[in-house]
């Protein structure tokens, strides 16, 4: 090569700077769509996400449907309230967070670990825009998957709910409202009084206690004949008294009946769906920010699994007098306090007020503030690291 260097040619006539605002921190639709596609094409990750959010509930419910169809006397219906709460609180809530965190961690670190980050930076596009483009793309994926899994659970639990039930040996119609249940009890007073459980301590509030001598053991076989202590001097109840007692018992037992035998109400399903989606959003956003901060996925996912499965249950129930405010700052406790009524308490236990009182108290306002703070803080940390990181 012996030729002289060409003289500087000055500004090229072909040069123009595209007016695409690439210095802006707002991502374009094309960037979001490209990021969505990049995430969606990760076959292994998508299979894992589908398996957990859709596959596990679907397989479990399918098996129950088949078993019930094959041997209805041995295996109860696949749907119903109990199945619903078990799948929602036991699977979708906990594992939804973890898979969302995994997706977020992948979205936050993939460009860096796969060498694409510098390609994007070289385009001159704002690093914040590159970061923010991942949020709607990732949320579109995880929220869709959670919604599909939740819809399957709802559908099966509603449409495969029991239609007739044996309750303490009594054949009871399913899906009765409170009024219908009391009406049915009045019509089947004898069976109800004989077979349904009653809170003895409230016996004195029954409309006509004359046939309920004090100190009696309660209702039992005898057909409305209340035996005195020692088995003597029975006082037969009139039909009206029996009906009153049956209605009273029905009032007491309706909550238990509804929980065990009915499918979830529409309002509960809507609230639960939003709650599950909120949990997934939190998992994704924290995973995105943490992995962007760390620059890699594996440790971020491990840390978030530890947070969800170990730290949060401990923080939710432990009584640490000087650290209670720190405990309240754990995002899992905040989401537990936003749980719709009627579901079992996250991290174990039923949904009764007594069970709920085991959770460290936190007001709804504080819970919302904690959740917002987690999302904003991790997003800011991830974006900051994205801006300052060497590419």
């Amino acid at each position: 090569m012996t030729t002289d260097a060409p003289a500087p040619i000055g500004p090229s006539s072909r040069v123009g700077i595209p007016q695409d605002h690439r210095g802006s921190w707002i991502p374009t639709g094309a960037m979001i769509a490209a990021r969505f596609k990049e995430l969606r094409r990760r076959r292994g990750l998508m299979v894992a996400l589908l398996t957990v959010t859709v596959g596990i509930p679907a397989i479990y419910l399918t098996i129950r449907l088949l078993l019930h169809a094959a041997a209805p006397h041995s295996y109860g219906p696949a749907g119903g309230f109990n199945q619903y709460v078990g799948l929602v609180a036991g699977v979708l809530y906990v594992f939804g967070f973890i898979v969302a965190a995994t997706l977020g961690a992948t979205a936050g670190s993939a460009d860096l670990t796969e060498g694409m980050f510098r390609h994007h930076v070289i385009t001159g596009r704002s690093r914040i825009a590159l970061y923010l483009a991942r949020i709607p793309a990732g949320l579109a994926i995880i929220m869709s998957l959670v919604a599909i899994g939740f819809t399957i659970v709802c559908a099966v639990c509603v449409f495969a709910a029991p239609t007739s039930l044996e309750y303490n040996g009594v054949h009871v119609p399913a899906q009765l409202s409170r009024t219908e249940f009391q009406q049915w009890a009045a019509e089947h007073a004898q069976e109800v009084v004989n077979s349904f459980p009653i809170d003895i301590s409230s016996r004195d509030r029954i409309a006509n206690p004359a046939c309920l001598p004090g100190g009696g053991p309660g209702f039992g076989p005898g057909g409305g004949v209340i035996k005195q202590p020692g088995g003597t001097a029975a006082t037969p109840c009139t039909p009206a008294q029996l009906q009153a007692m049956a209605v009273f018992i029905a009032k007491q037992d309706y909550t238990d009946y509804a929980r065990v035998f009915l499918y979830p109400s529409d309002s509960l399903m809507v609230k639960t769906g939003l709650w599950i989606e909120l949990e997934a959003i939190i998992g994704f956003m924290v995973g995105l920010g943490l992995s962007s901060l760390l620059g890699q996925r594996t440790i971020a996912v491990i840390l978030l699994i530890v947070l969800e499965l170990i730290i949060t249950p401990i923080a939710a129930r432990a009584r640490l007098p000087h650290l209670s405010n720190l405990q309240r700052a754990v995002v899992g406790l905040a989401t537990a306090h936003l749980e719709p009524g009627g579901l079992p308490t996250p991290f174990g236990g039923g949904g009764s007020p007594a069970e709920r009182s085991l959770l460290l108290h936190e007001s709804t306002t504080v819970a919302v503030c904690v959740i917002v703070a987690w999302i904003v803080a991790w997003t800011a940390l991830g974006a900051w690291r994205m801006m300052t990181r060497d590419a």
Partner: protein
Amino acid sequence: MNAHQISATTSSDTGSSRAAEGQWAVETHGLTKRFGENVAVDGVELLVPRGCAFGYLGPNGAGKTTLIRVLLGLTHADAGTMSLLGYPVPKERDKALARVGAIVDEPRFHSHLTGRENLEVLASSREHAAGERIVGVLDRVGLRQRADDRVAKYSMGMRQRLGVAACLLGDPELLVLDEPMNGLDPAGMHDMREMIRSLVDEGRTIVLSSHLLDEVQRTCDTVAIVDRGAVIRQGPISELLAGTSVVLRVECSDPDRARSLVEHAGVGAQVEVGHLGLEITLPSGTRRAVIAEISRVLVEGGIALYELQPMQATLESWFLRVTSRLGDPE
């Protein structure tokens, strides 16, 4: 590479603002980058004219890639000023990089996506027209047939080509290529060389960082030599080599006697006897008449001459002399 050319002008430029004025594609003054105590880029003064192929040469660890990373905003500078295509960086980095394409280090991509999909992802960060150039750039780098294969199945050479395709998405005026010949077979290197020359012919500026000196000499017009973070020489290759000595390689019948004859000829030559014959080194600026005189002395001294070949000093020999790795710089 396919002869298909992407358009040198873009319809998408309609309504766009003009690039900044200025004769230099790259201009740095006192550019410095430190990693702790180590000064990777040491007050670099670099002027890259527009529309040429510019070689950026240096031994391993000389700071070539670090300088490129600083120029492209992949890492920040500790001191100094710089501009790309007339735009000060980092102040107007987004405008500057809008017309820059670059490969830095080994080109890596999302391996689960196809080559085409990777380009689509990258095009999304650029202007809308970048997406329309994908087919053209794939064609140009010779990857169109494999565009829909996953990158995980690509060879190193194919990834290099995909890296060049990614560079071309923005219809760049300036391309910065860091070791673009890595992983290419001889045919691929030839294709790459041809493509670089064709890009220069279109009016683009190429900054080529490489340790393959022969390739640089065959591809570039102007070079800068960097060593220990600092630019120690810069200019057109022809000018840089003009000051080097001339070497004559002589095959003859009696090398020892021929050596004695040349040493006593009074031409100021240094003579060494090797297994192929004599190697006569003449001072820089030696006229051609001196070569004829040496030939005459040998023939009249009864030496049978089989071959007398003036050897052009190469960029490699010059590079080794001026860099500190094989001795002190000149």
